[in-house]
């Protein structure tokens, strides 16, 4: 079943000469209750794609699409008020760094409860129960204690789990995770991904995992879109990273050092040639 359907998505910003630069150029994809990875390097337009779906691109940025439909709702015509009812409830976004995306002066439990307060009419007691449940769902062992803490009192990995708890407390249908583990230590990355993966499977959510980390995305997603210069250059099935055909994807894979590395020099992307090719 298609949850999100995007056709010919374009995002542009004004440039200095009065024209517009397109940072996402005609992107199309369908997302079901699955894990879709979007990979690309800085400036490829991957984050802008996630933000456009969430309705988070403010003027002078401009979003157009032939079609952008989420669960039967036409997002291209949705006013801000309608978006507000969706965000946090039906679709949510996990950002890169818990240090900057949690409010430093509000206790963790209260921050998670805020979404419930905004979107539901639950009693304070029911809200509290939901908050503890959400913290437990992200494998926080002592939810009562953690709910009372401020963001600076928890580690990065714990902070990111709190973010995820906040995003899933209302059981959204779609979760967009933009570099959810890049600010975390290697040792906790896998844990955080496993928690997200588990939530996606158990609750039947659709997940859009946006990252520059090819290998990570390759291991956690059912399908991968590779973006370059605002366009999808290739779609890759599970485990087929090394069978990638597009020169950009192949270049990226080749330029990664390997554990059994014996090359004297790493191959470098020929950007000029790629630019001419696309």
């Amino acid at each position: 079943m298609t949850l999100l359907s995007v056709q010919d998505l374009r995002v542009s910003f004004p440039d200095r000469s009065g024209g517009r630069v397109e940072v996402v150029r005609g992107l199309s994809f369908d997302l079901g209750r699955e894990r879709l990875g979007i990979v690309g390097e800085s400036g490829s337009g991957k984050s802008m794609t996630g933000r456009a779906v969430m309705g988070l691109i403010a003027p002078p940025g401009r979003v157009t699409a032939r079609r952008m439909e989420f669960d039967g709702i036409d997002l291209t015509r949705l006013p801000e008020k309608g978006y507000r009812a969706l965000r946090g409830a039906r679709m949510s976004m996990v950002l890169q760094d818990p240090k900057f995306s949690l409010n430093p002066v509000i206790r963790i439990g209260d921050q998670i409860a805020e979404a419930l307060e905004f979107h539901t009419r639950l009693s304070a007691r029911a809200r509290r129960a939901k908050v503890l449940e959400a913290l437990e769902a992200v494998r926080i062992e002592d939810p009562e204690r953690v709910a009372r803490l401020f963001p600076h009192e928890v580690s990065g990995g714990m902070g990111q789990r709190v973010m995820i708890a906040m995003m899933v407390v209302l059981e959204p249908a779609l979760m967009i995770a933009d570099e959810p583990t890049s600010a975390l230590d290697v040792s906790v990355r896998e844990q955080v991904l496993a928690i997200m993966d588990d939530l996606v499977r158990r609750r039947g959510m659709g997940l859009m995992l946006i990252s520059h980390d090819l290998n990570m995305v390759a291991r956690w997603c059912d399908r991968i879109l590779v973006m370059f210069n605002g366009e999808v250059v290739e779609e890759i099935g599970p485990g087929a990273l090394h069978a990638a055909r597009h020169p950009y994807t192949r270049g990226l894979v080749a330029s990664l050092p390997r554990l059994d590395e014996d090359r004297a020099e790493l191959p470098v992307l020929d950007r000029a040639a790629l630019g001419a090719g696309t």
Partner: protein
Amino acid sequence: MIEVRDLTVRYGPSTVLHDVSFTVAEGESFALVGESGSGKSTILKALAGQVDDWSGHMALAGQPIARRRSRAQAAQVQMVFQDPYGSLHPRRTVDDTLAEPLSIHGLPDHDARVLAMLDAVGLARRFRFRLPHQLSGGQRQRVAIARALMLQPRVLLLDEPTSALDVSVQAEILNLLKRLRAEQGLTFLLVTHDLPVVSFLCERLAVLRSGRVVETADVALLRKGRLTSAYGQELLERSEGRTR
């Protein structure tokens, strides 16, 4: 080239390094791996003279490091940081950044040295009077490497020099570091959590955990996935997970 023996570092009441010992030969590239909080960056800071409360023995090129080091000794060891966005002064041009160490150490020929260094790190000369925000992440990291090399140091301390960069840019910077090391006979001490980077750039490594060295090994063992300590194996498994 680098000798560290029984190095212990305290920050207030907590001890962050416990009796760390290792040596790095001249021209060798040595890696310190471990997760956040293992103390790997603290070792670099101690060698760079940024830590006050330390005990033990550290020596560079046979000369023991004293509490107050001479200018010449300070010039021998230079550092490259992780974040090229945070480590360059936002209102100083590339030229200012590269010339500053020369002024401090009273060295002549600023022009010639700056231009030669831009060439050496593969930055076009037209970037000389740009500000950091006019450069890409990879170009900034080239500036940071150039700054570290201005005083012709013998040792480069590299603190996660590529983990803030895109994959393809990482390859360019790693190639650059490898080439510079060969050309200038530099000794590298690299801090990273990325084991494949160690395989590419280093000959030996030390595995750190909670401020202690749990294993020192040849990179050949790392390439074969045969670290001997339990914790080393754990790091390998996580890395395999990441790179498979």
